[in-house]
């Protein structure tokens, strides 16, 4: 039961930080981050066996930790292969799953409570998507996807559900059907927050193009898109997507916010364009998360501006593991970072199967 108390205390610390952030306080605080990171690392090291194994292989233990930067990061692929829980299995309350890929296996984030997840998602969304709204104001949302009831294992659907519940005006809706969404948009009389995956926007734009429709959404409208095209039948560059959104929806690129998130993380990262419209686009972290760009051996940080592998420390991941190594490349930019996607359709250097092609036949 000591573990329960310890865990509840950790959750409370994170929730308090998120509440402060939502109230406009709780800025990045390195001392606070380091203290909570150390305590959370010690907690997870003691309770998550596969994570402890990784730490031991790397020679890192809570007692000898010099800085939060030394905390070993778990590769996102591990969430497909093993249950990374820092609580007993029987307490699993909710499981979010990554979308299926050609290789079959889906990553899973097991949660024993949604409280931390929900407390952390709102401040970031509000700060980056609704910076011009009064704290108690609502706006109309159209989400191009299913709601949480329709897709209970989708963390994205859950996130949208919570956001719409907290800040959505009457008339907000979830609409996975692009044809119906296109019809609905044509009637929009008030500024909209239009949200969805990048691929959902591609379908919507296709639908509008088929109908020969060019909309001009009301001034003040904004778009939030997320996700990539891996495993999809078609790839579109982000520039082309934003140009299509401007052309067909009348929302200029400077009002389109990309969210960088993943099922394995409780926190999300958003483009700065609405918050800092006069500054270069970059992704910003919530105060309880840090993004590192590390060298190919997964160790040292590369200098700012240089390409590295993105590692994320997310202190809202209280129930699983706090440090995650992505397969994404990016670079640090001043107070934020940039994610660099793989060049679309890059020509292969050899005739061997690429890693993600190799197991594709096992998907069935």
């Amino acid at each position: 039961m000591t573990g329960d108390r310890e865990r509840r205390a950790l959750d409370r610390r994170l929730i308090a930080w998120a509440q402060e952030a939502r109230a406009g306080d709780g800025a990045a605080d390195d001392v606070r981050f380091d203290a909570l990171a150390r305590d959370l690392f010690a907690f997870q090291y003691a309770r998550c066996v596969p994570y402890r194994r990784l730490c031991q292989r790397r020679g890192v233990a809570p007692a000898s930790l010099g800085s939060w930067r030394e905390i070993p990061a778990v590769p996102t692929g591990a969430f497909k292969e093993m249950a990374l829980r820092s609580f007993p299995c029987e307490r699993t309350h909710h499981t979010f799953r990554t979308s299926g890929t050609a290789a079959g296996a889906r990553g899973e984030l097991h949660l024993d409570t949604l409280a931390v997840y929900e407390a952390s998602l709102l401040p970031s969304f509000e700060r980056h998507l609704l910076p011009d709204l009064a704290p108690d104001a609502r706006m109309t949302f159209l989400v191009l996807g299913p709601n949480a009831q329709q897709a209970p294992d989708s963390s994205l659907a859950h996130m949208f559900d919570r956001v719409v519940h907290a800040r959505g005006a009457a008339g907000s809706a979830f609409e996975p059907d692009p044809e119906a969404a296109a019809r609905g948009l044509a009637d929009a009389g008030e500024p909209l927050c239009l949200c969805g995956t990048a691929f959902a926007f591609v379908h919507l734009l296709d639908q509008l193009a088929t109908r020969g429709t060019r909309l001009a959404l009301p001034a003040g409208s904004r778009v939030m898109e997320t996700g990539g095209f891996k495993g999809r039948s078609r790839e579109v560059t982000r520039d082309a997507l934003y140009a299509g959104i401007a052309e067909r929806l009348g929302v200029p690129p400077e009002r389109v916010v990309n969210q960088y998130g993943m099922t394995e993380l409780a926190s999300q990262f958003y483009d700065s364009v609405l918050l800092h419209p006069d500054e270069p686009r970059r992704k910003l972290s919530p105060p309880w998360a840090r993004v590192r760009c590390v060298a190919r051996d997964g160790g040292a940080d590369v200098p700012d501006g240089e390409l590295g592998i993105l590692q994320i420390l997310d202190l809202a991941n209280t129930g699983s593991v706090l440090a995650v190594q992505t397969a994404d490349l990016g670079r640090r930019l001043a107070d934020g970072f940039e994610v660099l996607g793989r060049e679309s359709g890059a020509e292969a250097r050899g005739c061997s199967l690429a890693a993600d092609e190799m197991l594709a036949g096992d998907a069935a």
Partner: protein
Amino acid sequence: MSTASPDAVRASLRRLHAAGDALRKRPAREVLDVLGALLERLRDPTDPARRRIETELPAAAGFSPEIVREGLARGLASWTGAALRALVDVELGDAEAFHGAPTTAAILAGAIPMPALLEVVAALCVRSPVLAKPSAHDPVTAPAVAGALAELDPALGQCVALADFRHDDEACMDALCQADCVVVTGSDTAVSSLAARVLPPRRLVAHGHRISLAALGPAALEEASLAEAARGLALDTALWDQLGCCSPVAVYVAGPTAAAGRAAHALADALADAEARWPRGTASPEAEAAAAHERALAEMRGAELLADPGARWSVVVEPDAQPRPAPLHRFLRIHPVTDAAALIEGIRPLGAKLAGVALAGFAADTLRLEAALRGAGATRTCAPGSLQAPPLAWHRDGLPVLRRLLPGA
């Protein structure tokens, strides 16, 4: 950089079509002699065309100069004029009786020069003029081969042309696909895209991406034999930085579980030696990230991981035979299996994607195992150290080298 326009590609095809009329009137044996002489030239390390490939390919393709030198030397060792004549005899018999398509387009892929050379030679062997689109990663081999051929026989040189454009230049690709026969190597997605463009009566010959494997039996696990097998497999892995379809991505060790660990250590030692002799070339940041990801994943599983401090090679001892992603760039997985039957069962999921399997240490069971591997999908078996030197006559993807290019084949 794109240098061809759709009009230029169409004009090249027209010129080749005309050159093909003259080519088909030449005796097949005469053409074959020239092509045999071409191979002999390229086998000579002092030949200017060979030297050009050795000099220019490393920077263009990202391989170390040592890799290109060694890869060419081993790859071309058995590609003699005599081997080419034997191939024609076996596949065509009376070569005079066969003609390839009026024009062949070869969409060359990747950075490895051997398939590029083979595609040009094979098309000319069946007296089909060829329009080759060099890969972005190897802008050297096709021009070097075409130049050497033109020196040997200017008329035959007129039967090879190059179409240099970006692989995503749809208009140029459409123009190229107007050839009567289109040969391509690529991912399933790339092949599907071309299949939609090359409609009958035009002919598409597609080669997919493949992997190779290795298997060590009990006799190869004894100390002296293990070191030798490991040296061979390290060479197979190091050549072309494991990027080719002849590169092994996993080694199955048939025997007690501890044997897999011993094999891993022997391979790690051999890969370290290979790195000193044939340094690994460059890897894209994405490739480095994928390998780092797989190394960390192995640590999470508690798998034994042996890796160069600079991550220039990695060996992971897996707990079972379950296939796992291959990040390439000298990343080997070792899978323990109890015996040959378990080996066949273990690789079955990969059957359709298999190219070669290097085998050692199965003694009297070797022939039976080779047959089983071929039944499971492998198109070639050989000893460790020979994977990267397939014979000219190797039926890649099960397709005959020359007959695949004949109309109606």
